[in-house]
């Protein structure tokens, strides 16, 4: 058992203070009465009220959510297929190009991805709007999905699929009934990652969005360029709260599941 030394305790405290203080300040000042964000003038929730009445923000949030759900779903399907190809398909013509294209968006600066997609959309005369943002987000987030899924597939025991075939499954049934349920956690985390990346993205969306569709990050961007605003503080607080609840719930669920599995395994030994 490792003990917490003085040095480690200090570095952890300072480190997590650094990570969380800025967000904490943001949250606290979202309840500030004053319009001057740096001066505390008493507790108030009025900025949440004005935020809810701000249609522009609500519209942008709705667009963002649509884009995120659709693009992360397509990206999950394509990314999972790509992962299967990378891990399973063996050699085929153009494999190097394929894996290069899969992984390139991971390291490609967003400005370049955004610029190149915009030039494509203009080149083929596609009007910029929700559709173009979805196409762009799908393309860059499928890379992340395929990384997550392929790292699970690498450790997947192929004999499970062989057992399914041996027991009379077709290849498709073996995938549907055995492989997919087992890699499901990785596929779900891939989807969540793609979803978050899409919610989060400013740069690519700025290039590929048109006047008809503005996403929340674009909206936030245009208002914070002018400086700190209490309304944005309130919006940030809501977003942080949603993420925090999500992440904490997820980690509690996995923790309970792993505890239960441990207990089961202990019990199994004693049967």
């Amino acid at each position: 058992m490792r003990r917490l030394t003085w040095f480690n305790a200090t570095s952890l405290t300072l480190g997590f203070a650094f990570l969380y203080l800025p967000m904490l300040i943001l949250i606290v000042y979202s309840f500030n009465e004053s319009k001057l964000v740096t001066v505390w003038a008493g507790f108030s929730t009025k900025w949440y009220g004005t935020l809810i009445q701000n249609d522009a923000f609500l519209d942008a949030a709705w667009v963002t959510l649509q884009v995120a759900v659709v693009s992360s779903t397509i990206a999950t399907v394509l990314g999972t297929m790509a992962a299967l190809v990378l891990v399973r398909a063996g050699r085929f013509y153009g494999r190097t190009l394929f894996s290069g294209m899969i992984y390139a968006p991971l390291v490609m600066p967003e400005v370049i991805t955004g610029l190149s997609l915009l030039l494509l959309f203009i080149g083929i005369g596609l009007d910029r709007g929700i559709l173009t943002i979805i196409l762009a987000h799908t393309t860059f987030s499928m890379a992340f999905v395929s990384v997550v899924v392929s790292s699970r597939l690498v450790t997947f025991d192929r004999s499970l699929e062989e057992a399914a075939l041996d027991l009379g499954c077709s290849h498709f049934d073996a995938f549907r009934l055995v492989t997919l349920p087992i890699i499901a956690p990785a596929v779900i985390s891939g989807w969540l990652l793609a979803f978050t990346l899409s919610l989060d993205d400013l740069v690519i969306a700025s290039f590929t969005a048109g006047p008809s569709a503005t996403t929340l990050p674009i909206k936030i961007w245009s208002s914070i360029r002018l400086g700190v605003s209490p309304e944005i503080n309130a919006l940030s607080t809501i977003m942080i709260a949603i993420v925090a609840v999500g992440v904490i719930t997820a980690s509690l669920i996995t923790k309970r599941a792993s505890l239960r599995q441990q207990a089961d395994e202990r019990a199994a030994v004693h049967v």
Partner: protein
Amino acid sequence: MRRATLILLPYLWLLALFLVPFVIVLKISLSDIALAIPPYTPTLDFSAGWQGIRNFFAGLDFENFVFLTTDDLYWKAYLSSLKIASIATFCTLLVGYPIAYGMANAPDHWRPTLMMLVILPFWTSFLIRVYSWMGILSTEGYLNQLLLGMGLISEPLTILNTPVAVYIGIVYTYLPFMILPIYSALERMDGSLLEAAEDLGCSRVKAFWLITVPLSKTGIIAGCFLVFIPTIGEFVIPSLLGGSQTLMIGKVLWEEFFNNRDWPVASAVAVVLLLILIIPIVLFQRNEQKQREAEG
């Protein structure tokens, strides 16, 4: 048949939405700016047949790349991006290593929680995390209020809109990318190695330098690349925190495109940026490969 569908669908998607756009960028970077829609020449005219294609290629040149070398804005921006990325990566390592070390040496039952605390900011909006520093670092911001209140300074410090603010922003937002690989390297380390080193006469500090640091080298290298590579093309942080003084190439590209509407030059900037990035990417891949082989 089944296999072909599986390969073709993502393949075609990537060809159409990744490779083709990139070829277009390359092509436009060789074109000339024009007051037209689209705002560049030449355009490929298939209706003119072979002659059209020949005219098209004849119209391409490296003028934009020559322009990039003559105007010192661009190479200064490239150099400044590299400098900022290097310094920021080093700072992130300095901040991140003790945290990763502390996590790896924390009691077992704490670790999942600590892990979650590191990952949580990663799921939080990048934009909001950068934004949160604007209120802290501004002249009348919380940091200055605190320092003035404590009597440590008599004049508010100017931090926002300087490179220092950019460093802080990068360290803050990219910290999880540094912590996680180092943590996973340190966590795998066998604690008895340090005991063995001390048993053989090392002091604790010496054992740290001779055992812990070399064994976490792969994690350090991976973390540094994970911070360095995306930082070079970073746009949001220099725009929000760096002000007009801070030159970074991502910002230059953005302004060239949106403000000057000079698409050919913006494309040329993108091509050069990518060429610069190839070196660290190849090095990073090699490091990963080596690590995989070592783990066998």
